[in-house]
């Protein structure tokens, strides 16, 4: 799966399922401060990633994830 598809899928579920404002979606967007995702939302991100990409994330995977770009990179690495 190429990076473009990963980005597209993540952006889609963030807007559709997590109800993030579309105009807030940007690679530099901070997941907590800009997209307003809280600790419970991170549990649901694990669910969404499993459903969309078939990979299972654990809490430690998020330690260095600050921005949406970090998140795209994490998923690319996990799938790769």
């Amino acid at each position, binding site marked *: 799966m190429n990076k473009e598809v990963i980005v597209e899928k993540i952006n889609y579920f963030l807007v559709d399922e997590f109800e993030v404002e579309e105009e807030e979606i940007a690679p530099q967007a901070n997941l907590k401060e800009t997209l307003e995702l809280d600790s*419970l939302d991170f*549990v649901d991100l694990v*669910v969404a990633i499993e459903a969309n990409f078939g990979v299972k994330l654990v809490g430690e995977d998020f330690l260095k994830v600050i921005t949406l770009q970090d998140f795209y990179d994490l998923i690319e690495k996990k799938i790769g």
Partner: protein
Amino acid sequence: MRRVVITGMGIYSCIGKNLSEVKESLYNGTSGIVFDEKRKEFGYRSALTGMVEEPDLKKQLSRRERISMGEEALYAYVATIEALENAKIDQDFLDANEVGILYGNDSTARSVIESVDKIREKKDTTLVGSGAIFKAMNSTVTMNLSTIFRLTGINFTVSAACASGSHAIGMAYQLIKSGLQEMIICGGAQEINELAMGSFDGLGVFAMNIDDPTKASRPFDKDRDGLVPSGGAATLIVESYESAVKRGAPILGEIIGYGFSSNGEHISTPNVDGPSKAMTKALQQAGLKASEIDYVNAHATSTPVGDANEAKAILEVFGENGPCVSSTKSMTGHECWMAGASEVIYSMLMMEHSFVAPNINLETPDEAAAKLNLVKKTLNKKIDVFLSNSFGFGGTNSALIIKKVP
């Protein structure tokens, strides 16, 4: 001790999605009972049920709020919005004042089963998602509504089987009467789905007239053969008289008695003494003679033993030529955890609009019921004070007395 009044009501039930629709159904004797194909396929003896639509609250609530709500909480939210509007309370008031919540609920079967099924399938607890725990706990209604409405007062769920909603109102009454709270949102909620009621159906106590669903629930009738499960939610705003007057709120009624008891006998078979004791205690607390009650909203669920024993208890307390009696479960079915609250609302609507709703499907009362003043057809009659009975498994009993405030 302070006076305790009701200043708002909201209802989401199988006979109407708001107060106005419900009032019409009560007056017209309209049944909300249907045949549910899903139950038949699932293995139910009786596939009859009251049915409500699951509300779509995507526009009213955020994803974070909705994801923690099972159907009980969704119904309760809709009923509570109506009750708050009815009581002229907005979010600014809730933010500035200590308002509590006490709600009756005794199951979240669908939420529990769906989350456990998901864990079994995935063999991973995280993949059940963040909302599952908050949907599956019995206190789901109080935990969700207290968060959504940012409540800062008393906050817990009352689980007392089919008397849950009534005890929730009784508890609110006691807390306000004693000065511990000024205002409490209270009520009862009941899930409606095939996963929730299978074990109840298994006891063989559900009505079997699947050919004519609206005739199946027939409390006090000699041909009754069981209850019809139902659900939804009912919310009341209960507050001190002083608070209501200060706010200029509409005072819809005053709670003057809350009698309770436990049968101390069989887990499912009701008796006569327990209900009789609850009604007598409520009358004593209200300082009323039995003859001063205008209307009794009976618990009567349409089961052979339950209705007969309640009829005997009402006769014991009120004697012959007693008050008008009807069971609104003839129209709604048995709203279980919600019933104690919804039936107070049904009776309040009758008191407000001066009528007694009929005990539909009552053709020939059985021996015990024949001595009661049962109302078979809608009766236009002024009601100044009523008593509402609610009983539940384990022998829990609650009787509330509410009067009109001139």
